[in-house]
C-alpha cells in the first residue's frame, strides 16, 4: 500500500513538472501546445537511448533537455507569427510525426516494444524500496527547482513582456519588444521542462514504449493547468493531484459496475476526465489560483512616508 502511494505521488510530481512546461507555453505566452505528449516522449526516449548506450544518466537528461528545447524552438518558429490555431495544428502534427517515428524506427526506438532496462541513476546506492522514496524526494526537489526558476522568469522583465505579447502582440511590438524572439524563447523554455519531465519519466519506470505517450498525456497536462489556474504555477501541484485523484479514485467504478471489462472501465475513467475538463472550462475557467500580477499592496502605499 505504501509502495502504491509512493508511486502515485511520484506520478503526480512528474505530471506537475510537465504541467509547469505547459504553463509557460500556454499560461504565460498564450501558445497552445497540443503536441506536448510528443515533446515529453522525445525527452524520455532521448534520455533512455543515451543512458542505455552507457552515457551517464545526468548527462543523458541534460542532452534530452537541450534536444527538446531546440525542437520546440524550431516548431514554434514555423507558426509563431500566425494565429494560435496554427501553432496548435503544427504541434499536433509534430507529435503525430514523432509517434510514427517511435513506432516504426525500430532500430532506434525499439518500435512498439519500446526500450527496456533503462539504467536508473544512482541505483547502486539504495536498496530497491528506499530507491522509490529517494526518487520521489529527488523529483520533488527537481520540481521545486524548476518551479523557482520559472517563477523568477515570470517575474522578470522577460515574463512581463511575454504576458504583454500574449494579451496584445501589437502593443508589445509597438513598445519595441521582439515578439518572435519572445515567443520562440518561451516555447523553448517550456520544451526544455517537458524534456526534463520525459527523462524523469523514463528513469522512473526504467521501461518506456509508445503507448505511454499517447494524447491523453497532453489532455492531463491541460487539465492540471486549468484546475491549477492558467498562468499560475502555484496551483499546479494541486491541479496534477486532482487529475490523479480523478483517475485513481474512479477505479472503484469497476467494483460498482462489475459488468464492465477492464478496457471499458478505463474508457469510462478517461471519459470522466474529458467531461471534467469541459465543465471546468465552462464553469471555473480561472482555476483555483490566480496568475501573478505586479501589484503594490495598499498597506505599503498608505504607510509609506510622504515625500516632502
Amino acid at each position, binding site marked *: 500500500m505504501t509502495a502504491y502511494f509512493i508511486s502515485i505521488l511520484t506520478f503526480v510530481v512528474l505530471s506537475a513538472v510537465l504541467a509547469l512546461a505547459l504553463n509557460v507555453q500556454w499560461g504565460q505566452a498564450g501558445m497552445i501546445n497540443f503536441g506536448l505528449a510528443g515533446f515529453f516522449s522525445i525527452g524520455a526516449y532521448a534520455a533512455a537511448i543515451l543512458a542505455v548506450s552507457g552515457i551517464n544518466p545526468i548527462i543523458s537528461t541534460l542532452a534530452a533537455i537541450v534536444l527538446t528545447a531546440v525542437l520546440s524552438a524550431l516548431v514554434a518558429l514555423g507558426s509563431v507569427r500566425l*494565429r494560435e*490555431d496554427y501553432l496548435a*495544428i503544427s504541434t499536433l*502534427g509534430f507529435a*503525430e510525426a514523432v509517434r*510514427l517515428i517511435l513506432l516504426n524506427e525500430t532500430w532506434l526506438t525499439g518500435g512498439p516494444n519500446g526500450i527496456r532496462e533503462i539504467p536508473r541513476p544512482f541505483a547502486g546506492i539504495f536498496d530497491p524500496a528506499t530507491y522509490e522514496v529517494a526518487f520521489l524526494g529527488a523529483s520533488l526537489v527537481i520540481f521545486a527547482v524548476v518551479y523557482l526558476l520559472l517563477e523568477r522568469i515570470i517575474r522578470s522583465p522577460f515574463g512581463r513582456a511575454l504576458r504583454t505579447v500574449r494579451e496584445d502582440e501589437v502593443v508589445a511590438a509597438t513598445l519595441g519588444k521582439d515578439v518572435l524572439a519572445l515567443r520562440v524563447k518561451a516555447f523553448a523554455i517550456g520544451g526544455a521542462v517537458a524534456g526534463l519531465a520525459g527523462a524523469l519519466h523514463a528513469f522512473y519506470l526504467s521501461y518506456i514504449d509508445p503507448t505511454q505517450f499517447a*494524447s491523453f498525456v497532453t489532455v492531463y497536462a491541460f487539465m492540471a493547468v486549468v484546475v491549477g489556474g492558467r498562468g499560475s504555477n502555484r496551483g499546479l501541484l494541486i491541479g496534477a493531484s486532482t487529475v490523479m485523484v480523478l483517475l485513481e479514485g474512479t477505479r472503484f467504478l469497476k467494483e460498482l459496475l462489475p459488468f464492465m471489462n477492464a478496457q471499458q472501465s478505463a474508457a*469510462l475513467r478517461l471519459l470522466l476526465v474529458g467531461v471534467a475538463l469541459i465543465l471546468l*472550462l*465552462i464553469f471555473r475557467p480561472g482555476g483555483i489560483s490566480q496568475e501573478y500580477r505586479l501589484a503594490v499592496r495598499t498597506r505599503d502605499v498608505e504607510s509609506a512616508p510622504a515625500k516632502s
Partner: protein
Amino acid sequence: MAQALLNGFIGGLLIALPAIALSLSYGVLNFANFSIGALITTGAYFAYFYNVDLGLHVLVSVALAGLSLSIVAILIGRLVYQPLGEADHITLLVGSMGVAFVLENTIRLIYGADVRTLDIAVARPIIWNGLRLNNEQLIIIVVSLAAFAVVAFTLKKTALGRAMRAVSDNPPLAEARGLNRGRIVNWTWAISGLLAALAGALVAMDATVEPLIGTNYLISVFAATIVGGIGSPLGAVVGGLLIGLVEELSTLTFPTTYRQGVSFLVLVLMLFLRPHGMFGQAKIKR
C-alpha cells in the same frame, strides 16, 4: 501510376469532406475544431450501429449516420461551445480537444477497441484499361461529389448560405443586419456533422471501423484545410484532393506508415511559404 492517381483522388475525396466541415466551422465560429477527427470516428460507428446492430442497408446506414451526427454536432455546439462562447478562441480550442477526448472514449466504452467491418455484399470490382475500382470506391466518388454539390449550392444560392458567408466575413456587420447568429451556428454544426459522418461512414465501408479512424485522418484534414486556405470551402476541396494525391504518391517512395508524416511536412511547408493557403485571404495574420 494511373492506379495510384485514382486511389489518391479517392483518398483525397475522403479528406476533402471533413476539410470542408473544418473550414466552414472555422469561418463561422472562428476557431479550429480539433474534435473533427473524433467526429469522423463517431460517424463511422453510427454507420456500424445502423448497418450491423440494426441490420439496415449500408447506404441507408450512411445516410442515417450523417443525420445522427448532425444532431450530435448541434447538441455539442449548444452544450459545450455556446457556454464557452464568451471565452477567447484559445479556450474553445482546448474545449474542442476535450470534446474529442469524450467522444473517443464514449466509443471505446460502448464498442471497445476491436477492429470491425460493415456488412456489405461482396461485389466484383470494375476493371477498365487495367484500372481497378471497387464498388465501395465508386460509392465514395458519387456520395462525395454529391455532397460537394449540395454544400456549394447551399453556400452560393440559398439564404442560409449567404448568411453563413456574411457571418464568416464580418460577424458584427452580419449581426447589425439582423442575421440570427444562433440559427446560423446550429446549421454550421449540422453541416459539419453531416460531412464528417459521411467521411467516417465511407471510410468504414471501404476499410474497417476502429477507434483510430479519425486520429489517422486528423493531420491530413488539417493539412488539406491549410493548403486550400482555412475558411475557404472550395480551397478545402482542392486541398483535400492535393493531399490525397501527395499521400498516395508518397507511398511509392516512403513506407505507407509515414503517410501522415508526409501530410505534416506539406503542412509545415505551406505555413512557411503561404500560410493563408491557395484560396484564403492574406489577412490571416493576427
